[in-house]
C-alpha cells in the first residue's frame, strides 16, 4: 500500500496543535505504518506535494500568507487544525488593538517583519476542506479524521452543543450555579472536558451553527449572569465569530484605550 503523505505546517500560534497531531500519530502506532509525515517540527519547512496538509495557527505575517497559498496548491486535502486556524481563537485579540501603536509603544520601533493588517483564519485566504477545532484539538477526533480519510469514509464534526455531553455525563450545570459558561452554544466533541475538571466552557471549539446571538444573551440573562460576564468570556476565544463581533468589540477597544 502506498503511504499517505501528511504534512504539518505552523503559522503564527503556539504549535500545541501540531504537537497534539504528532502525539496522536505516536499513540496510534498502526498509523505510523501507513503514514509518511513531514513538517517544521520533524524535518523541514519546505512545502511539498502531499495528501493531507494540517495547518495550525493564524495568518499574521506576509510569510504566513504566501505559505498558505503554496500549501493549497500542493496539497490534496487541507485541514485547519485548532481554534486559531479555524476562527482565530486567542489570537483574535490582535485585530482589536492598534498593532502598530502597541508594537511601537513596546519595542520602541516598528517591527521588521511585515504583518498583515488583520490576522486571519486560514479559510479567509484559501479553500479549507476540513475543520478540526479545539484548543488544543482532541486526539481521538484527529485519529477519527485520519482513519476516515484513509478508508474513504466521510468525516464531519458533531453539530450538538457541549451541553448535551454534560447532560449525558450527569455533570452539574455551570449556568445554573450562576457561572458564565458557553457550553450551550459550543460545538461538542470534547466530552465536556473542561466542565469535568471544574472549569466552565469557554467555547474553544467554536459556535454550533444554529444558535442566534439573541438566544445567547437571553440564556445568560435568565440565569442572572451579566452581559459583561458574557462579553468577557467571548473575548477569550470567540472574538472573531459573528457572536464576538457583535458583542465584544466595544469592550476590547476600551481595554486598548486604558493600556496603550
Amino acid at each position, binding site marked *: 500500500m502506498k503511504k499517505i503523505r501528511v504534512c504539518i505546517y*505552523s503559522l*503564527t*500560534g*503556539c*504549535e*500545541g*496543535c*501540531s*504537537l*497534539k497531531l*504528532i*502525539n496522536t*500519530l*505516536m499513540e496510534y*502506532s498502526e498509523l*505510523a505504518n501507513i503514514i*509518511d*509525515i513531514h513538517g*517544521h*517540527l*520533524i*524535518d*523541514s*519547512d519546505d512545502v511539498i506535494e502531499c495528501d493531507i496538509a494540517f495547518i495550525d495557527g*493564524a495568518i*499574521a*505575517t506576509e*510569510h*504566513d500568507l504566501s505559505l498558505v497559498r503554496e500549501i493549497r496548491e500542493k496539497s490534496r486535502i487541507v485541514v485547519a487544525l485548532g481554534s486559531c486556524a479555524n476562527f482565530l481563537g*486567542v*489570537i483574535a*485579540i*490582535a485585530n482589536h*488593538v492598534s498593532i502598530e501603536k*502597541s*508594537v511601537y*509603544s*513596546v*519595542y520602541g*520601533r516598528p*517591527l*521588521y*517583519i511585515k*504583518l*498583515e493588517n488583520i*490576522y486571519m483564519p486560514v479559510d479567509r485566504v484559501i479553500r479549507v476542506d476540513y475543520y478540526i477545532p479545539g*484548543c*488544543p484539538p482532541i486526539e481521538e477526533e484527529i485519529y477519527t479524521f485520519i482513519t476516515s480519510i484513509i478508508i474513504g469514509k466521510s468525516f464531519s464534526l458533531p453539530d450538538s452543543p457541549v451541553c448535551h455531553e454534560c447532560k449525558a455525563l450527569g455533570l452539574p450545570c455551570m449556568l445554573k450555579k450562576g457561572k458564565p459558561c458557553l457550553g450551550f452554544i459550543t460545538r461538542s466533541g470534547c466530552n465536556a*472536558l*473542561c466542565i*469535568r*475538571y*471544574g*472549569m466552565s466552557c469557554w467555547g474553544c471549539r467554536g459556535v454550533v451553527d444554529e444558535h442566534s446571538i439573541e438566544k445567547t444573551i437571553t440564556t445568560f440573562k435568565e440565569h442572572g449572569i451579566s452581559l459583561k460576564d458574557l462579553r*468577557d468570556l467571548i*473575548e*477569550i476565544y470567540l472574538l472573531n465569530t459573528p457572536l464576538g463581533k457583535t458583542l465584544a468589540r466595544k469592550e476590547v477597544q476600551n*481595554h486598548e484605550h486604558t*493600556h*496603550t
Partner: protein
Amino acid sequence: MNIHIHNIPRIEGHLSLYIELDEQLRKCNSVTAKAVEGPRFFEILLCHRKYYEVPLISSRICGVCGYAHTICAAKAVENAMDIEVSENTTYLRELALKLNTIESHILHAIVFMLPDYYGEKYSIIKSIKFEHSIRDLLYLKSIAGKILKVIFGDRVHARNIIPGGIVHLDNSVYGQAKDLANEMVKNLSAINEILYNFSKLVNNTKYYMPSYDSNFVALKNSYYKYFINGDISINNAFAISPREYKKYFIESSVSYSTSKKILLLGNETFMVGALSRINININNLCKEARELLTQIEIEIPSTNPFLIPMAQLIEIYDSVLKVYELIDKVKLVSEYNRIKPRDGEGYAAIEAPRGLLYYHVKLNREGTIDLIDIVTPTTQNIADMERCIKYSINHLLSSVRKTEMKNIVNIIKDLSETIVRSYDPCISCAVHIVLLKNNG
C-alpha cells in the same frame, strides 16, 4: 559575506539566523537570531481578566510548556494576594512540572536533536523501525502525557490548576497514576544507551567548542521541589528573590525581532535551562542521576550548549524516579483556599522545561489584572545563543582545515543550526507579548 538560514526546522516556532562574515572568511562579525512570527498580544488579552482565569489563558502561550505558564501565573496571583497553598498542592504542581518536563525534554532531545546526530535523513517518527531505546523513550513520553491527562485533564493545557490550589482531583484515578509511574521507571534504562551515544557526539564537537564561558541562571531548589520553588541563583555565586528579578536582568528590545532580549546587569549574556539547573542543583539530583552524570564524564559546571540535551536526559532520569516517589507522597484530593478578591502586586519564578520563567502581576481591588509582565526562558537565552554561535564560528574559522574550506558555508550552517537547536528555543513563548509597561 552573509549567510542567512531561513526558518530553522525542528525547533518550536519560527526563527531565522543572519550571520555576517568578513570578505576573507577569517572572522564572524555578527550573528543575529530573528523571530519571524507575528506577536500574539497575550498581555492585552490578560489585562482586565479575573485573577482565576489568568493561569488557564496564559497556558495558551505555549503548546509545549503550557503547564509551566499555568503554574507560574497561579503562583504570581497567590503572591499578590498573600495566599499560601498547601504542601500537597505544591507537590502536585511539582509533579505536573516534572511530567511536563519529561514530555518537553523527550520531544527536544529525541525528536528534534537526534537527527543532528544521526544525519539529516534520520527522522524519528517517520519510521516505526527505530531503535529500541528511542522507542522506549517515546513510550515514556506518552506515559508522562497519560498521567497528566488523568490527574489534570489534558496533556497540553491543565484544566484544574487555579490560584489557591488544585480542584476536581479524583482519588479514583490514583491507582492508575501509580501504575503508569511504575511503568515509566521500567523504561528508564533506555536513557543510558542514548546518553552514551550523545556523549560520543560531544567528544566529536570539542573541535567546534573547546571552551565557551557564560553565566548560568536557575532556581536554587531542593530535592523534591526541583522546578517549583527557590531563589534565583546566578552562577551558583549568589541568589536573589523573584521580586528582585528586574533589578538584575535588564530587558532591551531589538530592532530586528519580535522577541525581546534580556541581559544580566544590562550587559552580559546568560544561559537558562536544563544545564544551568544541573550546574546549580547537582546535589539535589537523586543518587542514580548523579551516578549517570559521573559515568558520562561531563564536567559540571559547564556552559557548553552541546551538553544541554544530555543535561535534559539526566533530568528525565531524575524526574521519572522522583515522579514515582512523589506519587506516594501526594493525595488526589481537591484543596483550594477560598479567595476574597483584593489588590496587590505579585512575583513568581519557576523552572519551565526550557529554564527560568518569570511572572509579575498587578491586581486591582476587584481582583482583576491591571498589569502582567512575563519573561520566558527563550527571551533570556537568545542573546547567549547568538554570542555562542559567533564564538564557535570564529573558532572554526581560525582552525579550519584547508580541505574543509570549499565547504565552509555548509559547515557554518550546520554548526549554527545545531547550536540553535541545542538551546531548545521556544519562539512561540518568546513572541507572545507586547509588553504594556508603566514607565513610571
